[in-house]
């Protein structure tokens, strides 16, 4: 600053200040970035990485992928997941654990995604539904498995291919789900 002459300093200041004013005037006439929330529900778009509410996707035969192993419940740091299961005997005489109730308390959830990462079958995921405010605290407790649903029968062969399957299946399942939620918003 000191190595500049007095007039040189003034000229430089005027130059840089006018650049600033030009920039802000350009912004003045630009399109506004504001999202007008309740009105723009139909066009509102969130990034797919947003984590708003846990859900258990069901296919069109009312089947989910949860095998009631309880890993998500153990992974949850906040105790917001409660898996209730029962032991049943299948036709071929094997004992098998079956999901009865998958309870999720969004009021306790901190959306850390640990449950989704813990799930070996990709049975749960976070969706894009963000309007989670309710007037009654009890409504925060949700049951994620639909009534009458059962576990999806998986094709028997090749157990070696299993670990890769949930990771590959997850992004595929994501895409139709987002459209589903936006439809619900409308």
């Amino acid at each position: 600053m000191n190595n500049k002459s007095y007039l040189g300093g003034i000229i430089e200041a005027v130059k840089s200040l006018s650049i600033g004013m030009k920039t802000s005037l350009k912004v003045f006439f630009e399109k506004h970035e504001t999202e007008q929330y309740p009105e723009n529900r139909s066009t509102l778009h969130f990034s797919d990485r947003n984590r708003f509410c846990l859900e258990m996707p069901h296919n069109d035969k009312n089947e989910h992928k949860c095998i009631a192993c309880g890993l998500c419940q153990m992974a949850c740091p906040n105790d917001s997941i409660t898996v209730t299961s029962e032991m049943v005997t299948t036709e071929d005489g094997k004992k098998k654990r079956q999901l009865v109730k998958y309870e999720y308390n969004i009021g306790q959830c901190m959306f850390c995604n640990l449950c989704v990462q813990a799930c070996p079958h990709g049975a749960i995921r976070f969706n894009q539904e963000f309007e989670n405010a309710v007037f009654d605290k009890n409504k925060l407790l949700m049951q994620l498995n639909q009534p009458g649903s059962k576990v999806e029968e998986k094709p028997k062969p090749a157990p070696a291919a299993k670990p890769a399957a949930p990771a590959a299946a997850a992004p595929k399942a994501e895409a139709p789900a987002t459209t589903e939620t936006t439809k619900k918003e409308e």
Partner: protein
Amino acid sequence: MFDFSIVTKWFHSLLCGVMPEWTAIGIECLIVLLFIIVLYAILAIVLIYMERKVCAFFQCRIGPNRVGKWGLLQVFADVLKMLTKEIIKMRQSDRLLHDMAPYFVLAASFLTFACIPWNKGLEILDFNVGAFFFIAVSGIGVVGILLAGWASHSKYPIIGAMRSGAQLISYELSIGMTMLTVIMLCGTMQLSEIVQQQADYGWNIVRGHVPAVLAFIIYLIAGNAECNRGPFDLPEAESELTAGYHTEYSGMGFGFFYLAEYLNLFICSAMAATIFLGGWAPLMIPGLDGFNAVMAYIPGFVWFFAKAFFVVFLLMWIRWTFPRLRIDQLLSLEWKYLLPISMFNIILMALVVCLGLTL
């Protein structure tokens, strides 16, 4: 141009016909008072709304748009909110001074507001040292700000008030110098006469060319600082002092400071429009008689408000573009740059006037 003094004279003679002159003057004073207060309130509403919208547009936002159509009722909602707030009484504050301070600021604002010539023949305070009076009464505001800081008995207000004192006293010099430049050009201190001359011979900013443009820019910078706005908002620097000198005020005490701040912005702009941009004088381009005739049909107060709000926009543009100055930068800008330049500018203007180089 329509001379409004015809209306006021007619009204005066009408009142004098039915009552003694002193009652007539008393009634006229009341009407003028009512006029000032109503105009003050309306302008405050318009300015606060405008500031919010302009600020939002400069930040790529929309601004208030929920209360009423386009958020037009937002200001009323805020005033209602402020009126219903509790007035906090601090234990160790000087109650009398603390309660008085907003009224000092408001009084200074009202007195300067009354100096503005709105239209031809429509001036409230108009006498031969009008510009001098304007500068003098605008100085009362700093008393109110210092009182507010002192009486609050709290550290942020006192720091804000001290900064404000340093700032206002410094920048008043530049305001005085630039107004002196214009007074030299016009040869009168009477504001109505200054405007009348501009209506006759062209706007001062054109008539005085280089020194007038320089003076206009310096006036804008100093005026912005006088209003505690824009890059010069150190007295209430939110990030450092919460709200500066009015930190401890609540309810309408704060409301009055807020009101005075916006009206000072308008008064500063209106004075810039009056002494540089021709006040109520319409835009006249020599040679284009048809154009001039059309322009002369637009009433004077419309011209006045258009010019004043143009300057208001300029000041808002400056405010929402530049970052806040540090206190040493603020003082060096005034004492090392603006004041020497405006002194030099006075000499330049004197030469221009003496040598007859005005346009």
